[in-house]
């Protein structure tokens, strides 16, 4: 007994701390790896090579870019609101990394086995909006402000559909806990009974991390770089890595919620999880290579007129079936 804590508790604290560090490092490294993977895959699908000079298959290009970004001048514009300007990029990293805490990578590898796991995820993704809003506002720049306005509207709207699409999964599993949801998919992956929910979740997730085709907040043709126009150096790097962390997060979530997480024959659980998540990360890149950006009003109309009714219908039908079966 040390300070009134038993050895058993200390052990569990140490294990959790190690798991946390491994997950943090793993997710950030995976996000960093996504950068060369995306550039190479985009090259493949556009009939070109992408970076192929630095290191084997250009894999060290990201290291070179990082060294460059570290040594760049970390400039804060004199007209910016300094405190908010500095906090903004930290928020996106914080919220995205926090969301990784509840994801069950394997049966035993979950940092925080929360009973309200899904709600925690939604909470974190809704807090992520602040990063973009504050970045745009504190930059004191028209393009940045316009970009953050768009983001605020887009993210708040699509969060609604994201939450509604998850409710069907929650109804089937009877729990908000992500581990229980994975366990409930032993017989059949959720993607089969909940296919509309899967499509809506994927689209809403894409909009939530403002990836192409929903990258209106940073549409470079009209808004220079959107909300991070004024950012440079490591602060820009945080936005950049934050976006890729978002891809990793949404891919992990799709895997967990609709594709049976770690479940799978022969291979160990983590390998299955990784393979499934990696497939969706590549699919995000394929989406970017293939699709065009919608106009802003089209985006909103599509969300409220198409996704919302389908999501509500899905919840109603799933609920009716669950009630009828029990």
């Amino acid at each position, binding site marked *: 007994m040390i300070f009134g804590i038993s050895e058993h508790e200390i052990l569990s604290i140490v294990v959790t701390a190690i798991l946390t560090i491994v997950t943090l490092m793993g997710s950030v490294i995976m996000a960093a790896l996504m950068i060369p993977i995306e550039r190479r895959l985009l090259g493949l699908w556009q009939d070109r090579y992408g970076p192929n000079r630095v290191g084997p298959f250009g894999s060290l290009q990201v290291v070179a870019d990082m060294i460059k970004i570290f040594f760049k001048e970390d400039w804060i514009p004199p007209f910016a609101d300094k405190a908010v300007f500095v906090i903004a990029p930290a928020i996106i990293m914080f919220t995205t990394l926090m969301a990784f805490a509840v994801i069950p990578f394997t049966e035993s590898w979950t940092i925080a086995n929360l*009973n309200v796991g899904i709600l925690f995820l*939604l909470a974190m993704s809704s807090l992520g909006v602040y990063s973009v809003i*504050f970045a745009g506002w504190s930059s004191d720049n028209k393009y940045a402000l316009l970009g*953050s306005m768009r983001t605020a509207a887009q993210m708040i709207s699509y969060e609604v559909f994201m939450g509604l699409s998850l409710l069907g999964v929650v109804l089937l599993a009877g729990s908000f806990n992500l581990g229980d949801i994975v366990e409930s998919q032993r017989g059949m992956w959720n993607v089969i009974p909940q296919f509309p929910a899967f499509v809506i979740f994927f689209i809403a997730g894409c909009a939530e991390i403002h990836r192409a085709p929903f990258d209106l907040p940073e549409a470079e043709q009209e808004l220079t770089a959107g909300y991070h126009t004024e950012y440079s150096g490591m602060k820009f790097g945080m936005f950049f890595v934050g976006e890729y962390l978002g891809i990793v997060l949404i891919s992990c979530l799709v895997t967990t919620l609709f594709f049976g997480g770690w479940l799978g024959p022969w291979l160990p659980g983590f390998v299955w999880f990784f393979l499934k998540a990696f497939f969706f990360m590549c699919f995000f890149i394929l989406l970017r290579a293939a699709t065009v950006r919608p*106009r802003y009003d089209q985006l909103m109309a599509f969300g409220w007129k198409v996704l919302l009714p389908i999501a509500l219908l899905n919840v109603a039908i799933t609920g009716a079936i669950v009630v009828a079966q029990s």
Partner: protein
Amino acid sequence: METTFFIAGIVALAATLRTITCANPVHALLYLITSLLAVAIDFYALGAAFAATLEVVVYAGAVMVLFVFVVMMLNLNQETVTRERHWLRPKLWVGPSVFAAILLIAMVWSMTVGGAIGGIEGTPLSANAVGMALFGPYVLVVELAAFLLLAALVVAIHIGRDERNEARWKAEHGERETTQAGEQQ
């Protein structure tokens, strides 16, 4: 759990205090968001994990975003900050804070002497229990709230609708599906 509760409580108090005293409205909103997050942690420490996350999703994540949205559009500058400072003279906030202090003393007294205070245990309250309570004993309240929200929705659509604009759009584009309505959401 007790330590978490008190730390979060202190953070919430300090952040709320700064929300009131901060001259820059956006900074004040930032403090308000921090305060809401601290309150959410307090809920969690008390065992109401469901309420805690809903607090973050609904209040910090959606309602406050709209607040920030509006404040950002107001084009505030240094002038506003100085005016705000001018308004926040001690003479003005002494009165309200005395009354607030009296309220606080009354509350603390009723909780300690009156015996309303319980231990902070953190017994988890599941979402299931919350749902059962909402649609069991409190179903009437839920229905009333639903009525209110429906009325609000209808009013919002009515106000947000620009009939002249819609007529012009229809005249220009014929009977094609209007995409304009999306913007007014």
